[in-house]
């Protein structure tokens, strides 16, 4: 009798239907996490020049103690050492609480105001993240429960003669995970930060690009039913508001082929399994409203 029950239970368990999306979900998740683990590996590669452990302690000190950092830069020989550190990082490892934050730092620009304002922004972003993490960790600890992870870092999306696009990502893990990406694109020749509105003559780009993205969403879905977006034209099962248009300062970068790429964070325009989604905008449709074809061709 007992075995019969178990057999029957097992059959029912094995009959749990496998949704078609599973392949895509697994594939995407693997792809995304590979990128992050690769990045982490690079860090060790870069730092292995010096004794890694010593450098780590060094970094933490620089980050935690401005006085220490200043003292170092005051000593002429040590000045170069600080320049070698092209990153700063915060690391917390405590049982179920993990944080790894890597702060990019741009060097070598002649326009020092731009350089320092960007670097300051990166540091502040991560400092805020770090403080939030500590606060969350403390409150979770009081309840003696929970799991918390923050992983932040950066990817250089494009680095050509004219353009440098840096993407900073934050992966938050609290039960489930969320990822956000932010981009900065710099004109290397003129040493200015490129904003989305500055690329175009007027604000008509918002609608033109949005329409194109909506078209691409539907087309992708038609070709592959797993690529689901919250947009009119695809039958919706939920009540989530469909995507209407990009914001004026939508996340973007310029890729190595000089094409404009619009990026959306996880959950912005599609279910979580789609992750970060990006759309490459064909240059033909925006060529009329571009200020110049210097960046985008």
């Amino acid at each position, binding site marked *: 009798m007992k075995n019969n029950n178990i057999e029957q*239970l*097992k059959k029912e*368990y094995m009959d*749990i239907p496998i949704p078609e999306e*599973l392949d895509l979900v697994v594939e995407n998740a693997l792809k995304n*996490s*590979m990128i*992050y683990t690769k990045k982490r590996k690079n860090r060790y590669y870069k730092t292995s020049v010096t004794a890694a452990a010593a450098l780590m302690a060094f970094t933490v000190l620089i980050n935690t103690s401005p006085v220490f950092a200043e003292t170092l830069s005051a000593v002429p020989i040590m000045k170069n050492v600080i320049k070698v550190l092209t990153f700063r990082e915060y690391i917390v490892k405590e049982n179920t609480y993990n944080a790894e934050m890597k702060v990019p730092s741009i060097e070598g620009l002649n326009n020092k105001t731009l350089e320092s304002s960007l670097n300051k922004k990166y540091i502040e972003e991560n400092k805020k993240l770090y403080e939030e993490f500590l606060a969350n960790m403390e409150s979770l600890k009081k309840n003696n429960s929970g*799991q918390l992870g923050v992983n932040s870092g950066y990817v250089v999306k494009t680095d050509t003669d004219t353009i440098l696009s840096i993407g900073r990502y934050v992966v938050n893990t609290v*039960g489930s995970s969320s990822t956000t990406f932010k981009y900065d694109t710099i004109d290397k020749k003129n040493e200015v930060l490129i904003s989305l509105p500055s690329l175009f003559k007027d604000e008509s780009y918002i609608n033109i690009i949005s329409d194109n993205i909506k078209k691409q969403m539907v087309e992708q879905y038609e070709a592959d039913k797993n690529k689901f977006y919250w947009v009119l034209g695809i039958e919706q099962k939920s009540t989530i508001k469909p995507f209407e248009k990009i914001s004026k300062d939508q996340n973007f970068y310029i890729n190595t082929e000089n094409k404009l790429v619009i990026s959306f964070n996880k959950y912005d325009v599609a279910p979580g399994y789609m992750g970060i989604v990006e759309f490459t905008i064909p240059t033909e449709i925006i060529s009329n409203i571009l200020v110049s074809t210097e960046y985008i061709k």
Partner: protein
Amino acid sequence: MKRDNLVKQIADYIIIHKERYYRLAYSYVRNVDDALDVVQDSIYKALSSVDSLKDPDHINPWFYRIVINCSLDLLRKQKKVVTVDDEFLKNCNLKVVDKYTDIDLHRALDSLPENCRSIIILRYFEDMKLDEIAEILNENISTIKSRLYKSLEALEIKMEA
């Protein structure tokens, strides 16, 4: 590099056994979207904490454990009460809800506490050895044994009644 190899090994493992992991997740969260989320989060978690895998031969139990933990996390999170204002409720089409299949298996298994449920699933549905289960659930083997017998007793009564 050694770490690269390990990551690749884990990825291969996940690809081959993804359906088993999905089923396990589903048996906890009981709906397609949540189960997919659990699988996805488990992969993120696994690959961001490769260092916690002590023995490369134990990828399977290690990943099972991550899936179970992610599932439990999600269930725990759903238990939390969320307050919403009337405006939001009015705008919601309340007829659209996730579909939960309701069959005897679930009812019978549901009545077991989570730790017992995991044991039944791993032992009989995934055909695992007791020592592997002990490793996944981080308990010693005799605890697992006694829980297993208790669960079986409970299930039998439930199924006959």
